[in-house]
């Protein structure tokens, strides 16, 4: 999910069925070890937990703890290929495709003892659909939610809407007690009542938050851990040291440079997991000369993606071609983007209105050493084309503001998905009015926008895939964004942590995690 | 107040200007014997004091005069072991009641300070600890030595302050040095010096920093103490009128040496032998007696680093207790003609 991070997080290789990926071992405890109960897991992160009200946050630092306190009707499969039952045991779509019916699990209790029924589900979905909630767009297709009986919920959509089940697995549609069990949303966000594996024990804003095991969690026997604590540690060195020193178990955000040291430290291990993340060099197509496609193609041909992977990611990544991540079925493997070829770049530039180059800036977030490094590499190679780049460093929120309002030339951005269905990202990254104006490229293409809208209405995945491939080819031609590389989710964790497998959408599922003594 | 009789010690000899010479058998109160001090500047040793020899007996007040830079203050500081880091005693002895203070690495010196020898400094403004109440500064040494409590020490301080002429001492005993006038500060210092009942008191130009009226009051105080304590005084000054009024014997110093000294001040003043002494005494305006042309000295002593390092002849005995350094022709010419040269300019 797009976040403002002080230091950018670039993870290793994505496990993608279609790509036959390189041999980065996925470390996993041998199946023979049986999970043991007990243990307090401490997780380090760069950003602080802001709120525990599911309909409020947009930042990962708040989303992931919410996913441990609440449940959703469905959950994404671990490899991102679809959704699985959670609070809803089964679901089906009506013949005319306009109604989705969900059958709820029986005997699920909230932490205040109240039983979870369809009334709570209706309230939760309607709460997130309110315009004031930042994730209202996810439920935009929903017209009405009805509760025929205590354990059945029917969701009506204006047009057939294939991604609905995936949307029911998103944290924003977590199930909260009806009317927040009588509390105000503000109070509820500080003392949440959910059905999830953990309950809030103590929370020092901006410092740390501790969640203890929910004794009567509906998935009997889980969670194994006694408690989990999320601690804020801004400095990446300090996080690496704490995990190495045994003071914490998981570093959510290890710097690439510390990977080799952590791996041979003996006390910590590096886990790489499938991720939907794709990093781009956004180009502001509104401004001259970037409105010209040849200029953009010249820039794309002058970006040496292999060097970026080697120098910035220390090899933990793969150069990007298509806009969609290999972890999604909408990824078109045949697209490989513009190869690094300065002669071709010069040729493109010759055809453009500025054949002998021009001046431009790359906007970078301060404190983000990876962005600084990439900017300097691109600066050096563009200089060979006569394109003189100055690096403009702004603090994260100012850099973000500049990209939002389009007063920048080029900048770095990335995007991850929150649902397994590609619809969310494609609309967000590709279409003009998808929230980030085509990931800040302000690239308008009516044709692409219409394809995206049409694909959302089809039920057949192959048909949708054909359309998405057409969309990606169009983007590749126009290059409003230069895709840089695909990176896996990367975590450093202590060797006594087992079965820690974050999903493609980022959910931790700490209910399955256990610690050996 | 037990044993506080210090202030009015019994004297074992008649007080008097001339002072009675100690009999040969008993060691003198203070005997400085051929004391040499040198300064280490930029890697070289320069002689600051050369063969200083003088004696002070109980009840005697010896004046030590000379221009600034003649080494008179230095002699006092050497005798008290207060030489700054760059200066050191190279030879000679300082015997207090027969015991050489330099011999055993400063232990004797430490034992003697305060109870044996006391010292009053020139500038009361900087010689008192600015952050300590005056009462406490007067008695901190003696009360530590005699294990007195705060209250007892305070009473003794008030008594001493009264004795040195500070009006309403109760009001000032808790005051800080900067709250007192120059004269009062000097009296505090004197009170502090005599607190431990010393037998010998060094005075390093104690009145120079004060204005004339206060100066005479302090001198009266010294005379009173001289009578009461029957202590020996070594009084450094460049003010010859003070010498005349207060001292019984005199030593004259020039360029780090004693050029002339006598146990009988009057005799020496009437007929000084050494040309420098004559020039020095001649430079004093007489109020009484016939009007004489003022005689001045053209040049003061050369700075330390320009003095010749050749050893000078020892003092010769003019008469018992009266020694004079033989003056070289150049010195005679310098001190005699110096006067004409000055007149010619005027």
């Amino acid at each position, binding site marked *: 999910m797009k976040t403002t991070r002080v*230091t950018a997080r670039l993870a290793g290789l994505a496990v993608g069925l279609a790509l036959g990926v390189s041999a980065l071992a996925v470390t996993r405890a041998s199946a023979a070890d049986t999970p043991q109960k007990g243990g307090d897991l401490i997780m380090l992160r760069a950003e602080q937990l802001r709120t525990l009200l599911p309909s409020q946050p947009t930042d990962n630092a708040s989303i992931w703890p919410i996913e441990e306190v609440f449940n959703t009707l469905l959950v994404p499969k671990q490899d991102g290929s679809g959704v699985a039952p959670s609070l809803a045991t089964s679901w089906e779509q009506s013949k005319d495709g306009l109604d989705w019916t969900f059958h709820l699990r029986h005997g699920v209790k909230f932490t205040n003892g109240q039983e979870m029924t369809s009334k709570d589900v209706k309230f939760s979905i309607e709460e997130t659909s309110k315009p004031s909630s930042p994730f209202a767009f996810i439920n935009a297709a929903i017209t009405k939610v009805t509760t025929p009986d205590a354990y059945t919920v029917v969701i009506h959509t204006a047009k057939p809407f294939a991604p609905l089940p995936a949307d029911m697995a998103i944290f924003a549609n977590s199930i909260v007690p009806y009317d927040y069990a009588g509390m105000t949303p503000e109070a509820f966000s500080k003392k949440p009542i959910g059905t999830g594996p953990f309950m809030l024990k103590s929370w020092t804003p901006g410092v740390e938050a501790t969640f203890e095991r929910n004794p009567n969690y509906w998935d009997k026997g889980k969670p194994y851990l006694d408690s989990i604590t999320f601690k804020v540690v801004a400095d990446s060195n300090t996080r690496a040291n704490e995990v190495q020193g045994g003071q914490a178990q998981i570093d959510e955000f290890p710097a690439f440079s510390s990977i080799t040291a952590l791996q041979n430290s003996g006390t910590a291990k590096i886990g790489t997991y499938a991720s939907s993340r794709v990093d781009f060099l956004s180009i502001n197509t509104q401004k001259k000369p970037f409105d010209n496609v040849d200029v953009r193609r010249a820039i794309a041909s002058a970006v040496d993606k292999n060097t970026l992977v080697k120098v910035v990611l220390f090899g933990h990544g793969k150069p990007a071609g298509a806009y969609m991540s290999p972890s999604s079925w909408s990824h078109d493997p045949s697209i490989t983007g513009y190869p690094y070829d300065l002669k071709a770049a010069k040729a493109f530039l010759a055809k453009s209105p500025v054949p002998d180059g021009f001046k431009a800036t790359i906007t970078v977030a301060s404190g983000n050493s990876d962005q600084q490094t990439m900017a300097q590499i691109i600066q050096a190679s563009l200089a060979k084309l006569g394109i003189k780049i100055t690096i403009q460093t702004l603090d994260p929120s100012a850099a973000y503001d500049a990209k939002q309002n389009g007063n920048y030339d080029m900048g770095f951005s990335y995007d991850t998905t929150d649902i397994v269905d590609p619809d969310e990202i494609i609309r967000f990254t590709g279409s003009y009015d998808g929230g980030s104006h085509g990931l800040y490229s302000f690239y308008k293409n009516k044709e692409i926008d219409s394809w995206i809208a049409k694909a959302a209405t089809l039920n057949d995945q192959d048909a949708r895939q054909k359309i998405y491939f057409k969309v990606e080819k169009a983007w590749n031609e126009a290059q409003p964004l230069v895709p840089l590389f695909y990176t896996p989710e990367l975590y450093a964790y202590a060797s006594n942590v087992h079965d820690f497998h974050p999903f493609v959408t980022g959910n931790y599922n700490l209910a399955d995690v256990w610690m050996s003594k | 107040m037990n044993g506080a009789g210090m202030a009015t010690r019994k004297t074992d000899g008649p007080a008097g200007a001339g002072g009675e010479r100690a009999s040969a058998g008993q060691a003198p109160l203070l005997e400085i014997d051929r004391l040499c001090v040198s300064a280490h500047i930029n890697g070289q040793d320069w002689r600051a004091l050369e063969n200083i020899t003088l004696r002070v007996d109980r009840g005697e007040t010896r004046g030590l005069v000379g221009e600034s830079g003649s080494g008179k203050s230095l002699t006092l500081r050497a005798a008290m072991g207060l030489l700054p880091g760059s200066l050191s005693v190279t030879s000679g002895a300082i015997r207090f009641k027969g015991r050489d203070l330099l011999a055993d690495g400063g232990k004797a010196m430490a034992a003697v300070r305060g109870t044996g020898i006391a010292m009053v400094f020139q500038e009361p403004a900087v010689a008192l600890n600015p952050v300590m109440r005056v009462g406490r500064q007067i008695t901190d040494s003696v009360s530590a030595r005699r294990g007195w409590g705060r209250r007892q020490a305070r009473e003794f301080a008030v008594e001493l302050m009264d004795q040195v002429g500070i009006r309403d001492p109760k009001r000032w005993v808790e005051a800080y040095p900067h709250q007192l006038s120059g004269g009062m500060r000097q009296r505090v210092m004197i009170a502090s010096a005599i607190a431990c009942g010393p037998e010998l008191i060094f005075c390093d130009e104690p009145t120079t920093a004060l204005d004339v009226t206060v100066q005479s009051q302090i001198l009266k105080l010294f005379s009173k103490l001289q009578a009461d304590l029957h202590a020996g005084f070594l009084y450094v000054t460049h003010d010859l009128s003070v010498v005349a009024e207060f001292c019984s014997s005199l030593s004259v110093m020039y360029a780090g040496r004693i050029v002339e000294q006598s146990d009988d001040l009057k005799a020496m003043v009437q007929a000084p032998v050494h040309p420098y002494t004559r020039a020095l005494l001649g430079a004093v305006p007489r109020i009484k007696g016939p009007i004489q042309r003022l005689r001045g000295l053209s040049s003061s002593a050369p700075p330390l680093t320009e003095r010749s390092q050749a050893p000078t002849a020892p003092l010769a005995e003019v008469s018992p207790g009266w020694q004079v350094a033989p003056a070289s022709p150049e010195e005679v010419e310098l001190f005699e003609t110096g006067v004409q040269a000055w007149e010619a300019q005027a």
Partner: protein
Amino acid sequence: MTEVMIEKKRAGLMSRIGRTGRRRGNTHLLIGAVIVGLIVLMAICAPLLTRYGPIDQDFTATLQGPSWTHLLGTDNLGRDLWSRILFGARTDLFLATVAVAAPLVIGTAIGALSGYFGGWFDTIIMRIADIVVAFPFYVLVISLVFIMGNGVGSIFAAISIVSWVAYARIVRAETMVLSSTDFVDALKVGGLGSGRIVFRHLVPNVVSQAIVYAMSDIVANIGVIVTLSYFGMGIVPPTPDWGSMMADGQPFFAGGYYGLMVVPAAAVIVTSFGLSLVGDGLANVLRVKR
């Protein structure tokens, strides 16, 4: 007041016999001057001392340790650390020194005037000084970085806005001491205008203390530049500067690549060592209490 003058006279008196302090002060000045001189020299003829440009990237040789081809090794972009230190010296020393000049001049002037005139002028100046000192430096710097864009300009402005206060305070104290002496009264009686008195007579007497402080201020400025780079508000890449080299190297420290941070840190330490020796030596020569 007279106490101080007597103390000086007495010190004068004793000093005729010479104090050891002055000679040792010179050796401090000498060693310091040699170190700083050497660094300045290396910075000036940097191109002669190295084959590589400070921003030449070589991706075949990233994160190498010290070797004959790269004396101090290379950074994550394969740039030669030895050349970046040399050219970095130019940026940092120039900025740190220039960023002392303005506050020294402004601070001394304000300090002298407020020390001499006192009254409401002095109170206002001192209240402004309180606000400037109390104000968290980083809020100021970050805002300046936005208004003027980051890089040398905003750093220079930020440092100048804050550090004139120290000079003003030092000079004000010394001026107040002097302006109550007969020496200043004599000037007034002599009919001189207050402007001439302050700037022609008072300032030369009090400026030595400020100059000595300036030495340690240069050291402090280098520290500020380094810290600003740590928070990403320092010199604009790719211009080499010790601060950003250290900030870029910091994430690699836990990764075992110590050189990236240790090399620039050593450069900063050695330069500060030289500068503070010069400061000490200067203090002795100018006979100023540090």
